[in-house]
């Protein structure tokens, strides 16, 4: 069966060019980049190049790039470093729509370590309450961490503006840019951020490789204490193959940025408009004017997300639902709840997230499948009668 992959905010296909770049380093070129021999340094040289390419994508210096094992490690390392750098400060601030890599970490720090955690709310469009954020910046604040773009809705936070206001006060600022990277331009210098997280598998590199950008001159406390790798900022022999792949992926991401905002965005808008046109009782979640170009979070009244996903799955279509189906409760995700998306459509929310590999034919097939899936499910829903919600 042909797979139609529209779940790119979950993970992405590893680009062919990336695989090609990595293959030799799975095999013959297995040297340790730290070794004092030419064989090892063949790998070392590739890693230096990769570091440069990663730095280029976000307008950083190669020295400011630390390779980690994933986006989650980058997020955790950034926060723990900030807490070590500001041991007397007890307030930490983030939003209530963060990825669990930040949100659960902050809850842990609140419940187990006694930190005063401020979770800044969002409005119905998913935009951050900036006034509340700025009002909560206190002398006692160690760090503010705000995601650049939301994984579920694609809503973009005004990071350059926030970072300026936060760092002006001498407070450390971190951003989880895992979803923003490769989809919108990122310039760490212009944006005044102290630390920034990336993850390889969201930009067509393999899973299990991440990046933490740490601004030059900033005191950094390693999270993994060990050898001298990454200039002593992250111990452990490098994941050489994935780092090399990530370098290539960043180079490609840079090249593809213009396509994201034209071709991919047009496909996303096409899918959105067709679904709105062909199916009644549909609403799009998130700030439409201020969204990643590839993401569509869309709710269907009176039907449930998992059921829709299974019907899509039968046609080989991959997407996500807005439910945190990990708990038995089937409750809508914390992001949709934070936005006060009404239950009637929150339970039936589907996230389509596109990449440049998608085609218009695929969008047409999704629309056709969705029309019939929603019709079937509504025919058995007690909350849908005569073409409307009851």
């Amino acid at each position, binding site marked *: 069966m042909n797979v139609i992959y529209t779940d790119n905010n979950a993970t992405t296909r590893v680009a062919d060019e990336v695989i090609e770049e990595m293959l030799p380093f799975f095999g013959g070129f297995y040297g340790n980049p730290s070794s004092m021999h030419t064989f090892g340094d063949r790998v070392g040289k590739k890693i230096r190049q990769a570091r440069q390419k990663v730095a280029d994508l976000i307008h950083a210096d190669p020295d400011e790039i630390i390779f980690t094992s994933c986006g989650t490690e980058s997020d955790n390392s950034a926060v723990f470093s900030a807490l070590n750098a500001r041991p007397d400060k007890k307030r930490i601030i983030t939003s209530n729509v963060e990825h669990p890599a930040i949100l659960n970490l902050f809850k842990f720090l609140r419940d187990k370590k006694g930190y005063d955690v401020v979770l800044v709310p969002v409005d119905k469009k998913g935009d951050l309450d900036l006034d509340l954020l700025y009002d909560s910046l206190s002398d006692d604040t160690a760090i503010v961490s705000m995601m650049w773009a939301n994984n579920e809705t694609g809503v973009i936070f005004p990071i350059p503006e926030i970072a300026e206001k936060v760092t002006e006060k001498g407070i450390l600022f971190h951003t989880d840019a895992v979803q923003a990277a490769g989809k919108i331009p990122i310039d760490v210098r212009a944006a005044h951020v102290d630390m920034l997280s990336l993850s390889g598998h969201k930009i067509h590199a393999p899973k299990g490789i991440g990046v933490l950008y740490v601004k030059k001159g900033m005191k950094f406390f390693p999270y993994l204490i060990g050898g001298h790798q990454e200039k002593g900022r992250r111990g452990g022999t490098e994941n050489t193959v994935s780092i090399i792949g990530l370098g290539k992926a960043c180079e490609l991401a840079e090249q593809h940025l213009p396509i994201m905002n034209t071709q991919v965005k047009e496909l996303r808008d096409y899918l959105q408009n067709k679904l709105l046109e062909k199916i009644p009782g549909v609403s799009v979640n998130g700030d439409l004017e201020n969204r990643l170009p590839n993401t569509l979070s869309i709710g269907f009244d*009176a*039907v*449930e*997300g*998992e*059921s829709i996903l*299974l019907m899509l799955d*039968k046609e080989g279509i991959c997407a996500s639902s807005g*439910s945190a*189906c*990990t*708990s*038995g*409760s*089937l*409750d*809508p995700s914390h992001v949709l709840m934070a936005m006060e998306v009404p*239950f*009637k459509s929150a*339970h039936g929310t589907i996230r389509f997230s596109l990449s440049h590999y998608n085609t218009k034919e695929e969008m047409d097939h999704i629309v056709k499948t969705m029309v019939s899936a929603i019709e079937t499910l509504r*025919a*058995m*829903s*007690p*909350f849908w009668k005569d073409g409307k919600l009851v």
Partner: protein
Amino acid sequence: MWEYTDKVKDHFMHPRNVGELKDANAVGETGSLNCGDALKLFLKVDENERIVDASFMTFGCASAVASSSALTEIIKGMTLDEAAKVTNGDIADYLGGLPKEKMHCSVMGKSALQKAIADYRGIQIMEKPGEMVCECFEVTDLEIIDAVKANGLETTEDVTNYLKAGGGCGKCLDRIEEVIASVKAEG
């Protein structure tokens, strides 16, 4: 992804007895739009209290649809007394099992069936007896005690899997823990 049995998948993709039953003389409803799943069960009962036909309308995940479909198949042909003895475990067994996180779907089937039987017999189901523990999903302490005893539940997570209680805002979790402890203390 959930590991569903072939039977669950079959009953989801090809649900039996879907839709309103025009000449139904008993209806049982449970769940709500807010909860994320709901079931409306229709029964046609003859003068000997035998269920001659049954149908359902369900809003919910695949296991909710499959549980509803299975329920209608199980009870067709039964007398109301026989049907009253059907348990949520019977529904899950009919489907070759449900993931434990989805057991509440079979509980929902059982609850709609009880309500439909009460509806036929003209019994007003009174305000739920007991003390309300979970406001999000309207679950009382007595219901939790029943579920804990019947299914050997151990943790708050188990209770959420079976009754949903605690899966919303979470403020009732401490109270659920107390209720579980009280059952254990009884032995």
